[in-house]
């Protein structure tokens, strides 16, 4: 089995199996992804592209949701 990769998830290191997609990452985190915005290296990854967008070693991934705010 090939080496795991490490991404920066919301600023913290997150190991992942190689060839993981954005969709795989969301599954690992237990999110259905419906109300989560995904940003990889400053680019927004739309829902229709999440299963095909493969994450690379060192990618900066941000997951954002709506929370209370005024």
């Amino acid at each position, binding site marked *: 089995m090939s080496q795991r990769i490490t991404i920066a998830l*919301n600023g913290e290191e997150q190991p992942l199996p190689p060839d993981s997609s954005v969709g795989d990452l969301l599954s690992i*985190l*237990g*999110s259905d992804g*419906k*109300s*989560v*915005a995904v*940003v990889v290296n*400053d680019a*927004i990854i*739309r829902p229709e592209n999440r299963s095909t967008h493969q994450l690379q070693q060192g990618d900066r991934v*941000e*997951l*954002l*949701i*709506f*929370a*209370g*705010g*005024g």
Partner: protein
Amino acid sequence: MDVLKLGSYTFSSRLILGTGKFSNSRVMLEAVRASGAQLVTVALRRFNRQQAEDDLFGPLSSIEGITLMPNTSGASTAAEAVRAAHIARELSGSPFIKVEIHPNPQHLMPDPIETFEAARILAKEGFLVMPYIAADPVLAKRLEEVGCASVMPLGSAIGSGQGLATSEMLNIIIRESTIPVIVDAGLRSPSEAAHAMEMGCEAVLVNSAVAAAGNPPVMAEAFAEAVAAGRKAFMAGLMEKSGSAVATSPLTFLGTY
């Protein structure tokens, strides 16, 4: 019918509610329902596996007639606010964005230069830009000129409950503006909201006043009634003030004036 017009959107409610600082999301949702608000603000936050239940998109979307207005809170530059707006639009599908750029957590006063720049860019991109600003008539005019959907000057500092401390400047902004003026921040009581509406504001945005009330849903309802009453009074036209007494009853029956 008297409606609030923002871009191509119309709203019968003139109360905009913020969703921060509530003790829990159940109370917040009750308050949103009780307020009758049709435009509700939300903030972007990093997803946290442990706090997944904090996500408000689903619960808020389930309330009929609600349009989300995400804010750019957390941004301290125009570039960060533009980036936040893009992400927020992706999530909400709403064209509304409350541009909120306050670099100093001590007073939370909005940065006029970064706010202007972010608003200019986002309005050009087709967002319905609702900038949170100090009560500055010159800045308000400049924001109108670059295509903002409204201006949202503060009544007083965010969360301070100091009311309409800026009313003199608000009056100038209202008089000069051709886009809706919405008082955002600082209100504490429904009477202040009614006052803002009587002055000619097109709407008010409250959050802390409801969230930090003893009974938030009831306070939300009180604000809704006050905003409606204030609007009605504005539309009816307030009487002119007089420097001296003007009798409402005949003075000739018994008296010998």
